[in-house]
Structure formats: C-alpha cells, structure tokens
C-alpha cells in the first residue's frame, strides 16, 4: 500500500494509518481515504482519487461539439442535466447563438427538476450514512417520479443528452405541465415536510451533524468551495442570481444559506439544510417556469441548432450553477475542424474534496463518513 510522503518517523507510537479503501459502503463513489489516526481520532487525512478517471477531456478532443454532450452527461451522473446545460451554454457563447425564451424556460425547468433529484440523492444517502434508512427510500421514490418525467420527455432516465448546442433534443410532451405540477404539489405537501420532520429536525441527527465538519467562511472561500458547500457557511453566493443565464433573472427565488441554528455556522448540518431548502426553492422556480411556459406559444426546439458546429478561433469560460456547485467549462476552439481543441471542466466536487484534509483533523472516524457525505462528492465529476 503506497503511502506517499509519509515516512516511518512521521508516525508517533500510537498512530496508525488506516485505509478507507476504494470500496465504500457509502454511495459516493470510488474514493480512497488514507487516514492517520490516533486511536479513534483522525490526525491527518489524504484522499486519493483517480479510480474513476475516464479521460473525458481527451475524448472531447476527438468527437465533434454535439458529440461531447453524451460525455458531459457521464461526468456527474447524478445530475446530468446540469452538465449538458453548462456545456451547451459555453458553445452557444462561442457561436453567439441566442436561444428562444421557450427553450430557455424548458431548460430552467429541467435544470431545477434535476436539482431536486440530485439533492434527493444527496440528502438521502447522507441520512443513510448517519443510520436513518427510511428517508433515503422516500426521497428516491420522488426521484423516480422526476426520472419518469425525464424519460417521458427525452427517452432516458439518467444520462439524457437533452441540452443541445442551440436548443434541445426533444420538446415537452403533451400533459407534461399538468403532471409536473401535480408531482410538485405532492412533493411540497408531503415529501418535503416529512423529510424535515423525519430526518433534519431529529435530535439524534442534529447531534451527529451540527458540531462536526465546521468550515469557516474564510476557509471555504480560500479553498474555492461553491454551491451548497459555500452557502452552508454563510455567504449567499449563487450564480443563478449573481450571473444569471438562461433566463434565471425572470424568476423570483431566494438564495438558501446555512443559519447555524443548532451549532457553529458551516457545520455538516448547515450544508444539508441548504440542500433541503433548495429543493423547496427549486420547486417554486419550476412552478413559475411552468406558468411562463403556458403563456408562450410553442416554438421549435431545433430551430437554432446548427447543422455543423464550427466556431471561429476563440475560447470561452462559461459557468453555471450545478447542484453541486459552480460548474465551469473552458473551451478552446481553433477555428479548423469540427472537434474542440480543448475542453477543460472546472468541477465543483474536485474543489470540495480539496478542503477535506482541513476539515477532517481532529474528527472521529465515524464522523469522516458524515463529512464526505455532507460535501456531496460524486467521484465521476472529480475524476472525469
């Protein structure tokens, strides 16, 4: 077992090196954590990643611009509408295409539904890591309904290839608006309050999570945490408000921040609280988007999709607010050929992982799992 950089003299007498190996009982992916522990307390931690590296960025150089979209889906496979949306926005900036408000509204609906689904997985698996098995299944029941809606629209349940450069792959089917509203009504009336009562307000859950993994604001900002990880520590930074894209400026919603009501601000509890409340806010956004959609005439979603994507020699960095944080695409086009010259992805989970070694000092081993779960890492996005 390779232990890079640590020599025998580094270890004190009682310390041992523990491997929480690539095979985890939790569902966060293949991650190897090397912990240097003193009995039950962790003195230092080092995550080893790369077990899920699939050469996404190299593949992107060998397929044409629209062909990269299935690859982007597979990075963060839990929330793939967000990935393809970010990429499509980036290439549209390169080609200077403006999509119609109809397409923008549908994109917002899909992205927010995907946000709800992704947070269902995040909060559910976090509950499971803490030991509460039931909320996971209730949330997954609702996530299945969202995935059913996606399947109804575009044919696939997990990896959609939906947001295309210049438009969408399919239009919404008949009856989608009604079904979506009905689902959201049930979600807001039943699942969401039950989740809060069953999991988040439970005293045992609070005691397990409210005092650990406290990330102060300065640490969060200096390690470039974004998304719910940052908002759990206080600052209300949300790209949907700060740099709106795809029509987000037309919707009224609040940016959810952690309140620190049960413990210090920035604890694991706060991050999970932010994710839960964001589910309710996303539901509100979808309601508003459905209202806007009903007032518009249906447009052709393939209208602005170019026959051949050949941008001029330029580069673009475009950011969007994925459920896990700020997802950035840096695309370099060299003006010749239909393949991108370089696609680089700034993945929010990668930066979230980087703060792990700071937060895990002095924790119990049992809390390490809680910490990883609260950072909501998906290894597919870290390793690409």
């Amino acid at each position: 077992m390779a232990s890079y950089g640590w020599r025998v003299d580094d270890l004190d007498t009682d310390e041992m090196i523990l491997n929480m190996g690539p095979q985890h009982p939790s569902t966060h992916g293949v991650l190897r954590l090397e912990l240097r522990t003193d009995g039950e307390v962790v003195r230092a931690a080092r995550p080893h990643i790369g077990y899920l590296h699939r050469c996404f960025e190299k593949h992107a150089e060998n397929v044409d611009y629209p062909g990269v979209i299935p690859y982007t889906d597979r990075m963060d496979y839990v929330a793939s509408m967000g990935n393809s949306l970010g990429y499509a926005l980036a290439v549209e900036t390169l080609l200077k295409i403006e999509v119609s408000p109809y397409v923008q509204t549908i994109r917002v609906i899909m992205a927010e539904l995907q946000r709800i689904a992704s947070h269902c997985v995040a909060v559910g698996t976090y509950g499971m890591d803490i030991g509460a098995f039931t909320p996971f299944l209730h949330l997954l029941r609702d996530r299945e309904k969202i995935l059913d809606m996606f399947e109804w629209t575009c044919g696939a349940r997990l990896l959609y290839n939906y947001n295309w450069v210049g438009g969408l792959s399919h239009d919404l089917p008949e009856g989608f608006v009604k079904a979506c509203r009905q689902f959201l009504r049930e979600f807001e009336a039943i699942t969401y309050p039950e989740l809060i009562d069953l999991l988040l307000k439970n005293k045992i859950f609070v005691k397990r999570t409210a005092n650990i993994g406290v990330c102060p604001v300065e640490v969060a900002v200096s390690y470039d945490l974004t998304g719910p990880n940052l908002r759990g520590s206080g600052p209300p930074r949300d790209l949907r408000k700060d740099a709106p894209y795809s029509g987000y400026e037309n919707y009224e919603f609040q940016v959810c921040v952690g309140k620190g009501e049960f413990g210090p601000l920035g604890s694991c509890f706060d991050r999970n609280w932010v994710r839960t409340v964001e589910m309710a806010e996303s539901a509100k956004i979808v309601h508003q988007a459905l209202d806007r959609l009903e007032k518009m005439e249906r447009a052709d979603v393939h209208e602005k999709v170019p026959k051949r994507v050949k941008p001029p020699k330029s580069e673009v960095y475009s950011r969007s607010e994925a459920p896990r944080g700020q997802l950035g695409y840096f695309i370099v086009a060299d003006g010749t050929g239909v393949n991108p010259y370089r696609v680089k992805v700034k993945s929010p989970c990668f930066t979230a992982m980087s703060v792990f070694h700071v937060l895990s000092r002095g924790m119990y081993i049992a809390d390490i799992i809680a910490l990883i779960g609260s950072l909501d890492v998906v290894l597919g996005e870290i390793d690409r």
Partner: protein
Amino acid sequence: MIQWFKDVWEGFWTVLVGMKITWRHLFTQKVTLQYPEEKWQLPPKSRMRLFMKYEDCIGCGQCARACPVQCIYIKADKRDPKATPIFAANGQPIKLDVTVFDIDMSLCCYCNLCTYPCPTDCIYMTPEYEFATTDLTNHLYHFAKTGAKFLTVNPKAPAKPAAPPAGAAPAAPATPKPAPPTPAPPNGGTPPAPAGA
C-alpha cells in the same frame, strides 16, 4: 441546566414525530413494481435498443460519423449503374450497396445522436430493453442482409398521375425484427443534422 432539560425533551419529542411519519407510511400505497409479472410500458420516445431498417439505408454514413463512441461500422460499395434502381421508403434513390452495417450495442451509449442525421429515418431507438445476453458477441448486430427486398419503384415519384399527397409517410411493411417501429422524430420534414453534414 435548562439546556439539558430542553435537549432531553426535544430528543423525546422528535423521536415521536419521526415515529408518527413512519407509522403513516406503513399504510400508504407501495411503489414496488413486481418486475417479471408487471412490466411498465415505456414511453414511445424511450431510447433502448437500436433498430435499423436495412431496406431504407442509403449508405451515407452520417450515423457513423455522428456517433460519439464510434460503434457503427459501415462498408458500402458503389452499385452497378446498370442494375435496377432501388429507392428508400421516402423516395431517395439508393446509390450504394451497403455490405456491412454493424452496430456494437455493447459500445453504444444510447445517446440517440445517430438517429437525427439519417436522411431516410431508417435508424431509430425502440423502447425494448430486455435484450441481455450471455455472450458478448451477440451484442454485435449485423443489419446488412443478403436477399433484402428493396423498393424498385419510387414511392414518391411526382410524375405519376395518381400521386399520393406529398409529405405523407407510407406505412412501413412488417419486418422480421422485433419491436414495431416508432414514429419519426418530433418535427415533420427533414430531421435536423447537428453533426457535420
């Protein structure tokens, strides 16, 4: 001291609230699908097994070019110019003999990008998902077949006096392959070609 009492009371009370929720859930309707006995009908747009109608293929290779994982292998030769002209179902003349048209379903990523550039809509994804097999080579589908019956009469020829109205797609003849074909992609008219032309 007061905090201790509050903690104990809150601990007890939140446990009871949680128990109420799980008690209610004992009596709600269960969402399990008993799989082999109950199967759901997938929506018609579902992207499952790929199907390609060989009699309509003009051998242009657009689908192979659009595929991001290069799982379609096409080999086509020029047809003998003296042979009978054959046509696809939408009227396009077939100028190439497609000798090899293989799709490796074990490589396919089910992205549906191959269906859009096809000028004759002969390749599409069907909602059939139960095609697991024990031998991986069974996933290499060979669609090119000898002895295929091509249309020798142009179904959309405008010169005929009793021409059918333009734009009406004729019903596809019965095929030996499983899963009946689903209708053409969402918009009428030429499907857009996002990939390179």
